[in-house]
């Protein structure tokens, strides 16, 4: 990552490149907690959870909802790969609630299904929590 005091952040979804911006720092919702990234961060690959991505430029902070995926920090910048990037206000809460019910109904009998259920639950819960 460049050391000019800025972070080059690119957010990509399977549909298109949603965001390509330069900011001062950002906070990522990782799988097991939040992670702040400032210029000069060592290269890493992280698994994203479901939550709010905060992009800070100067004093303004832009918030986005990140729907799982990964983050790759390289020398050039931060690449975020996620299924969808939406404003927190755009989350469909009703859909999330029905997804939560569906996730609850998954029977976890093997480690694989347990992991699947856990993931679906985390996704639906985050959306219900943040949705309006």
């Amino acid at each position, binding site marked *: 990552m460049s050391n000019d005091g800025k972070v080059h952040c690119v957010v990509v979804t399977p549909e298109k490149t949603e965001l390509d911006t330069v900011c001062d720092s950002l906070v990522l919702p990782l799988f097991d907690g939040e992670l702040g990234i400032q210029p000069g961060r060592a290269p*890493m690959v992280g698994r994203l959870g479901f939550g709010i991505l905060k992009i800070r430029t100067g004093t303004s902070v832009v918030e986005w909802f990140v729907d799982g995926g990964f983050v790759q920090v390289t020398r050039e910048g931060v690449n975020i790969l996620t299924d969808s990037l939406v404003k927190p206000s755009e989350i469909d809460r009703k859909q999330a609630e029905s997804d939560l019910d569906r996730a609850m109904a998954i029977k976890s009998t093997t480690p694989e299904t347990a992991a699947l259920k856990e993931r679906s639950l985390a996704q639906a819960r985050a959306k219900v929590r943040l949705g309006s």
Partner: protein
Amino acid sequence: MANIRQLDKRRKSVKNIRKITRTMELIATGRFKKAMDRAAAATDYTKRITAIVQDLANSGTEVSHPLLTAHEKIDSIDMLVLTANRGLCGGYNGSVVRAATARRAEIMQQIQNGEISVSGKRGISAMRYAGIPIEKTYTEFDDKPSFAAVARIADDLIERYITGKIDRVDVAYTKFVSVSKQVAVVETLLPFSSLAVPSAEKATGAGAASGTSAGTKDDYEFLPSASAILEEVVPASFRARLFKCFLDAAVSEQIARMVAMKSATENAGDIIKSLSRRYNRARQSKITQEIMEIIGGVEALG
């Protein structure tokens, strides 16, 4: 007399048809360009996911995931057939349906289980006509398939595969090879064969270097761990792969319609030409005949 009027009527109706087909061709061309742009925009994701997989592989992580392992005994095979909602696109729907039914006949010889899901009204009616029971139907995918909707189907398939309800997933769709070549294929998507999404390699070319920073090898830190990331990478690339099938189908549909409508317009032009010729000839002979009659009448009088 009646013949001339009939010819004129037919010529007018063919002209109308030509107008319609030409408009449809123009619309298809516009949609094709948009669909191509969408497909191009989608390659960025596959490119970057391939870069991450590359990093994982370089770190020496053992690649194993329930979606990557083939089930020992295959009892049930699901098939997804991607067709168009509308016709008038040449052999597009027919060839996909033909490929799908051929594969189904093959499957049915060995095992009796397996659901067929069809996307697109044309495919649905063709399958119904063939007497093949359809489990799920989707008609919401037009020329702009949304990832959210595709991801739902993908998640459903992942769940069914992991829980052991199904042992294989086939997808019948029209693969986009180039602007002048699209082929109807049946591909096995699960068990997931390779993590690298096809065409990602080709499409990246020079751009691929930017992800992994040309030449310099970075020692990546994996949070929380390489295996946890792998757990997420595999379903994500499966979803991207399925989405690519939908995008390919959408692009191919527009191309097929464009080509079909272009030849329809040309054909209408040919018909108009020959009808005009016949009409003019009939008119001329009628005039000649009338003159002959008048001259004959004058001569008889004189």
